[in-house]
């Protein structure tokens, strides 16, 4: 009797925690969508802001966030994947590689505002890139690197050694083995990690604050050395910095809906890749 009670309590606590987390998520989503959906129209996502941002849309912020994510991807993915390949495939276990690995894990815990300050000092000032979408994208790339390295390394670890031995024993070089067998097999895992990381990076505000995001720009960002508007910062600005906050509140909620939808689409891609990979095996 007592044993059954304990089993029931375990089950109840675990299920309860799960439901609680889901409920919080649900409340947030319902709140944002109910208050924001009315302002999400075709004009909203295809027009620039108008009349001191009390009207019009958020096209420059959408474009800015896309630019930002693109630059982050181009910078962080190749370096991150290369670093993970080195750590998992080439580096012999030693104190040095353990120190490198621990440093990377620790980098993942650095607050994002610190990355913002670092990006300001390094990219904006030292490299003289100015406050631009390039500086901001590189800063976000730095922030993303530890996550990409860690998830890629985990994906590579899951490839059994027998797979590597198969091609090595045929006389393939280590590089050919990685390029032809290890990477293709690990690709779904790597892509999932990359996409989850990027969707997190796309919603970051602090790292882009000092490195290039603008309150308002005239026209769209068309090259990497320009300043840009971004969705998360636009939300922050509309909800705290605007002169008539009450009036633009629906626009802030609408912008949130768009940002969540974009991130959700990215996550859906990761989900699709995993699903496709599972059904192929």
């Amino acid at each position, binding site marked *: 009797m007592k044993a059954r009670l304990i089993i029931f309590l375990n089950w109840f606590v675990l299920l309860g925690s799960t439901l609680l987390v889901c409920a919080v998520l649900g409340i947030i989503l319902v709140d944002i969508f109910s208050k924001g959906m009315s302002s999400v129209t075709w004009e909203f996502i295809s027009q620039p802001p108008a009349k001191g941002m009390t009207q019009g849309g958020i096209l420059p912020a959408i474009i800015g966030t896309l630019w930002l994510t693109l630059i982050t991807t181009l910078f962080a993915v190749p370096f991150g994947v290369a670093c993970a390949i080195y750590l998992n495939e080439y580096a*012999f*276990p*030693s104190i040095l590689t353990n120190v490198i690995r621990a440093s990377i894990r620790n980098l993942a815990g650095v607050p994002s505002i610190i990355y913002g300050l670092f990006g300001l000092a390094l990219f904006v000032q030292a490299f003289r890139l100015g406050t631009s979408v390039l500086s901001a994208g590189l800063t976000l790339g730095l922030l993303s690197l530890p996550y990409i390295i860690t998830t890629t390394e985990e994906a590579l670890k899951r490839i*059994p050694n*027998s*797979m590597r*031995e*198969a*091609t*090595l*024993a*045929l*006389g*393939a*070089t*280590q590089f*050919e083995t990685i390029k*032809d*067998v290890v990477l*293709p*097999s690990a690709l779904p895992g790597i892509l999932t990690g990359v996409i989850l990381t990027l969707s997190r990076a796309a919603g970051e505000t602090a790292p882009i604050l000092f490195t290039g995001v603008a309150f308002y720009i005239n026209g769209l960002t068309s090259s990497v050395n320009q300043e840009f508007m971004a969705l998360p910062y636009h939300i922050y600005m509309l909800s705290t910095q605007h002169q008539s906050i009450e009036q633009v509140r629906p626009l802030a909620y609408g912008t949130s809906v768009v940002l969540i939808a974009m991130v959700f689409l990215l996550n859906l891609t990761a989900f699709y890749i995993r699903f496709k990979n599972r059904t192929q*095996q």
Partner: protein
Amino acid sequence: MDHVKLSAHNLNLFFGSKQILKNINIDFGENQITSLIGPSGCGKSTLLRCFNRMHDLSADARIEGTIQLNELDVYDKKNPVTQIRKRIGMVFQKPNPLPKSIYENLSYGLNIHQFPKDEIPGLIESALKESYLWDEVKDELKKPAVKLSGGQQQRLCIARTVVLRPEVILMDEPCSALDPISTRKIEELILSLRKDYTIVIVTHNMQQAQRISDKVAFMYLGELIEYDSTENIFKNPRQELTKNYVGGHFG
């Protein structure tokens, strides 16, 4: 013995400070099947992996002594390991087909060693025939190799090795993951390969060693205890240890 194809002289292997192989001296005759037997952990798989330098990627493995393929020094830095492994093929304990099609599993090795493109289909066909797999897969060469049964996968792995025309084939317990019928097929295949290749096989199965091998080497705790014809090892072993092991008293 006939011509010596592959040999180890004064071979010692250490993992860190632990010595795994102790002063191994052994010659494998051309076109012979040699079985390496011994209890688990005696170093037979470790020894097998010395011949195609599979320990190269282990950071803490250290090898002393020499291994020769004909007159070639296998561990001479001048000889690229990829060429060594092309000449000394290996089949593993668990079938490990590449996550590609049946055809690509065989064409992979041919491509990386730059065989002429127009010869590849013919080479693949004859390797599959040699491995008794052709009739079963000839209509579905584009099928993923992982969809084959375990026994078929292992024959594919042998075909993948054979297609490169190696001189020696190393086999590390190739039947231990297979059912008796698949095992029988692989054994027939191994016997039929003897005319073209020198085969060294690690096995835990005494009956298998008796059925297929010309010579048998018994190892214990990293040492080569006895190396003789299959008949002598099983009927008239000279060493007490060998007698106890093949008699089933330990292992």
